[in-house]
């Protein structure tokens, strides 16, 4: 997959998803409620609003996650049932405190299940838990999406069918640039000339103008910022292709995409970054070949997704 995007209802409640879909040639679009962000910021997400959003844009998203009530699996299951009853095929969320039996029931019901609750978990424990849950899901014909799993290295070890990586927008907010080095998504400070120099080859591979960045000495604004957002999305797209080249994870029951995992999604929460990110998918399918894509994207298999 080239550019898979995760958008949270908490950030994008007013967004026209048909515009996003138009730009994504074969990248997948996943929607979540943004429950964790809402929970940490005191925002309330109403089930009815989330359901209306999902129903309005149903032809344009590929996967959607149920409304997850943090710390309350029973309420989360209630939301999942309510959304299913409205004909919205949302993915249930398995989280801390739930049993193997509950997990298996979710996989039997839906096939593709989100696994959350990883915040605060040590890496070893997170990887082991994800590995075993994916394995068990696969035995039942399903697969998991590891919510917020983040690092590509962890995804490679745990091998879920899919995972989303930390937010590109937050990276910008803290003045960092992300790039893929062939094993991991790395980041360096935009105002750190030594780091830029150390990584110039990899950054140039993402079509990042290192000279301009070094001369600026800070995170740029305007058009250049959009280009940087695109370059960072390219890092995730390349990492996604690299993951496919090292292992395959079977497609869960009910998922229409024939390509096996793992698939990597990057989440976007800031409007000025979105155009660059989704435009990348279009450009890659029109012959744009930056060095990092020549290296890792050469095995890309396109399955063009048209709005249902």
């Amino acid at each position, binding site marked *: 997959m080239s550019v898979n995007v995760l958008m949270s209802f908490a950030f994008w409640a007013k967004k026209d998803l048909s515009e996003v879909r138009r730009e994504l040639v074969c990248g997948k679009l996943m929607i979540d409620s943004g429950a964790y962000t809402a929970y940490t910021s005191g925002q309330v997400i109403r089930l009815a609003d989330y359901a209306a959003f999902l129903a309005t844009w149903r032809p344009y998203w590929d996967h959607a996650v149920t409304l997850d009530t943090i710390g309350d699996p029973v309420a989360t299951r209630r939301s999942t049932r309510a959304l299913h009853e409205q004909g919205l095929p949302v993915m249930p969320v398995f989280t*801390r*405190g739930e*049993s*193997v039996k509950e997990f298996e029931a979710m996989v039997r019901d839906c096939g593709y299940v989100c696994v959350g*609750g990883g*915040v*605060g*978990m*040590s890496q070893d*424990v*997170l990887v*082991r*838990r994800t*590995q*075993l*849950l994916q*394995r*068990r899901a696969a*035995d039942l014909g399903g697969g998991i999406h590891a919510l917020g799993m983040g690092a590509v290295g962890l995804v*490679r070890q745990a*091998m879920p069918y899919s995972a989303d990586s930390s937010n590109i927008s937050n990276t910008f907010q803290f003045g960092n640039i992300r790039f893929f080095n062939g094993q991991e998504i790395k980041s360096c400070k935009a105002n750190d000339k030594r780091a830029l120099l150390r990584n110039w*080859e990899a950054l140039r591979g993402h079509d990042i103008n290192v000279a301009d960045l070094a001369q600026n000495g800070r995170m740029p604004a305007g058009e250049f910022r959009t280009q940087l957002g695109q370059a960072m999305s390219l890092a995730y797209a390349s990492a996604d292709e690299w993951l496919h*080249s*090292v*292992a395959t*994870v079977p497609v869960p029951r009910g998922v229409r995409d024939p390509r096996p995992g793992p698939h990597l999604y990057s989440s976007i929460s800031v409007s000025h970054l979105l155009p660059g990110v989704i435009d990348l998918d279009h450009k890659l399918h029109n012959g744009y070949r930056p060095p990092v894509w020549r*290296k890792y994207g050469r095995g890309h298999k396109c399955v063009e997704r048209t709005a249902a």
Partner: protein
Amino acid sequence: MKHDLKVYDELIRNLTPHPENARHGDVPRIMASLRKLGQYRPIVVNRGSLTGREMEILAGHHLVQAATELGWQYVSITTVDVDDDTAKRIMLADNRTSDLASYDDRLLVELLGGLPDLDGTGYDAADLDALESLFKDHAWEVNDRELQDALDTADEDGWPVVKAKLAPALHARFLEVPGSDDSTRVTTLIQEWDEAHE
């Protein structure tokens, strides 16, 4: 541009490193390779009639360094006779073209794994482990006990621990809250508070 390339042996002491070589090589690994495989590619040397600097190395600096460390007196070389600008370009291109190459990692693992040992290849066991781990089969049997243990560990991992200093009277009241441990009592209190304020 065509060079008349002939290979012959030359005394190492007659060769001079290029003063602007920007490359840092892994000399110990090249030494290991020379020990096992010998020299299988000539050093490229500029004869120097156009630069005024005789027998300057353009490609193979670290191979010469490794050979010197091993006590060799001769290396095989081939020569060109180019001006300063071309000499620099040859030196840069030799390094850069190798930088830009990439691997088919799966084939590389098969190739390395098919050898009886890694001596002289430039790879060591840790390199091969790292490469092999990329392609390990992730299919294995998961038994219920193992999965339940992993979930139990995960459930207990990383939850915040809250310490609270309570006056004796308040602590006594806290202990009156139904529950088998402090966590259950806190949860009960929060639920009661939520219900009272709904």
